[in-house]
């Protein structure tokens, strides 16, 4: 009735108002959280904003009238925290990509499970709620949730080394995968027409799980930055879809923020490799490898021992270090820090040039180097470091390959032609720490190694940098 101010007359309790208020404040805090993350000086404030938002949202939910099973809720909270805290505290920084993939898979799983539960609840008790739109979104949410679950598990397996990180391919793969997705969509549409077909729902789940697995299995390790970003986007989108099903705007907003974040990162990663989404997902890299290896021939390179390399570094005025995934594999970040200290103490200007796709996830190298206490203002992006390289005395490449290959600039026939690279070949001297002469992930020979100014430093990155540190320290006395 107009003019009524008693909220209970409108069927709204104080608790419900409080819940809604907590949700809207949480949504605002999530946006602020991401805004504050834009710069390292405010980033930790962003984390706190996110945490407060999350606590508010949880508290608001627990106030809802029909929540009863508090013992179960507390128990699951406890189990979740008991698993989550050790992961966060003990996980080494080199394993951050694995943890990220694993958390995408948990996120996808949770969304899939909620979708499943909602479907069975509504089909049994409130079939009128399963309108065409709701059923459609529910099917979308469930497919996306479960495929993110298995897809991210596969990504985790590859990053953890449980599964081979080489692409696993077979003939007709794309046809099988797309066919499977198509069947899943058809099942989803059928359920949309007749939601009461409860036996079809498990089929939908099974197809989504299988599709997620088969989609990621053929993707190689070097494409992981894009794949992780894409899975991040899926996890967010599925949470957003869940918000549509549950008519919860907080879920829609938080999911959309995550979804757009993952999407932006995937675009950045794709641009940094000069490849398209379809190319990454349905990749051509398996075919490229063979062609490229045929082109490789026996040529000689110049190599040097740690002592020689150390004296070149110590005599330089400016050094740019270009790290890659090999640095993470060798766990060389702390030795690199020692090298940084030794050289800086001698007045050498040391900077790091970070390619967007260096490592296995966006920003991977920055986190590793920050872990080793290298100040972040020495870590420069590709676009910032490239103009400096022509005036740089020594470029030291550690565990990176394709992102330094000048063929990307010059050789139109090269599979990586057009990919933006770090122009280490423009420095006065290039030194490359590498285990052997084997080609990089893409199997493309690197012209850089045969240049006159290039010096190959063969060995394990951690051991070799350690030797150089010792040599410089000895020379200093």
């Amino acid at each position, binding site marked *: 009735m107009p003019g009524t101010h008693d909220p209970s007359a409108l069927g709204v309790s104080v608790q419900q108002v409080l819940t809604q208020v907590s949700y809207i404040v949480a949504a605002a805090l999530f*946006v602020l959280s991401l805004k504050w*993350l834009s710069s390292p000086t405010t980033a930790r404030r962003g984390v706190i904003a996110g945490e407060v938002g999350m606590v508010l949202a949880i508290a608001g939910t627990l106030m809802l009238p029909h929540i*009863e099973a508090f013992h179960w809720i507390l128990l699951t909270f406890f189990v979740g925290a008991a698993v989550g805290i050790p992961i966060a505290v003990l996980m080494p920084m080199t394993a951050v990509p694995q943890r990220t993939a694993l958390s995408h898979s948990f*996120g996808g799983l949770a969304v899939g*499970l909620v979708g499943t539960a909602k479907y069975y609840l509504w089909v049994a008790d409130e079939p009128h709620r399963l309108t065409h739109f709701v059923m459609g979104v529910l099917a979308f949410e469930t497919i996306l949730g479960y495929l993110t679950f298995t897809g991210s598990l596969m990504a985790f397996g590859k990053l953890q080394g449980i599964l081979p990180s080489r692409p696993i391919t077979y003939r007709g793969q794309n046809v099988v995968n797309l066919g499977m997705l198509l069947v899943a969509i058809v099942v989803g549409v059928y359920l949309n027409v007749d939601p009461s077909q409860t036996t079809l729902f498990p089929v939908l789940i099974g197809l989504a799980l299988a599709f997620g697995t088969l989609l990621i299995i053929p993707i190689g390790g070097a494409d992981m930055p894009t794949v992780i970003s894409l899975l991040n986007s899926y996890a967010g989108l599925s949470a957003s879809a869940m918000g549509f099903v549950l008519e919860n705007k907080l879920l829609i907003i938080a999911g959309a923020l995550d979804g757009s974040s993952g999407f*932006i990162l995937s675009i950045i990663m794709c641009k940094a490799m000069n490849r398209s989404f379809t190319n990454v997902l349905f990749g051509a890299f398996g075919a490229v490898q063979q062609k490229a290896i045929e082109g490789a021939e026996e040529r000689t390179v110049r190599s040097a021992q740690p002592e020689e390399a150390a004296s070149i570094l110590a005599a330089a005025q400016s050094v740019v270090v270009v790290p890659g995934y090999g640095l993470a594999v060798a766990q060389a970040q702390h030795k690199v820090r020692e090298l940084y200290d030794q050289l800086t103490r001698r007045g050498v200007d040391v900077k790091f040039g970070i390619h967007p796709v260096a490592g296995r996830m966006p920003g991977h190298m920055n986190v590793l180097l920050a872990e080793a206490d290298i*100040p972040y203002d020495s870590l420069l992006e590709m676009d910032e470091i490239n103009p400096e390289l022509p005036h740089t005395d020594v470029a030291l490449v550690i565990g990176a390959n394709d992102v330094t290959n000048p063929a990307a600039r010059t050789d139109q026939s090269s599979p990586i032609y057009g990919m933006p690279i770090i122009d280490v070949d423009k420095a006065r001297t290039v030194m490359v720490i590498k285990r052997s002469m084997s080609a990089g992930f893409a199997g493309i020979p690197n012209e850089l190694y045969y240049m006159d100014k290039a010096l190959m430093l063969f060995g394990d990155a951690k051991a070799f940098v350690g030797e150089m540190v010792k040599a410089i320290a000895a020379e200093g006395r």
Partner: protein
Amino acid sequence: MDMLMSNLYVFLLATFLGFEVIRRVTPLLHTPLMSLTNAISAISLVGSIVILGEQRTTLTTVLGALAVTASMINVVSGFLITDRMLRMFKQRAPQGKGKGA
């Protein structure tokens, strides 16, 4: 229908806002960005709590319990590891002669 339309508007605006905000995040922090958004999207916890809390059938209670556990792992580990990473990012010591000098 009204609800649906307003939800679509919310989704649209949140997506655009997300693009604008996240575009400004420095590549330096892309890894913490991903773990933070991951923790935030574990807001699906809210939906899971409702399923579990209502305790309607055995099936949905089990599904809800699994979903709450999975989301809670993400919330806790996501926020904690983001903070752990961010604590590592330090600026160069002012005009330092290297560290520990």
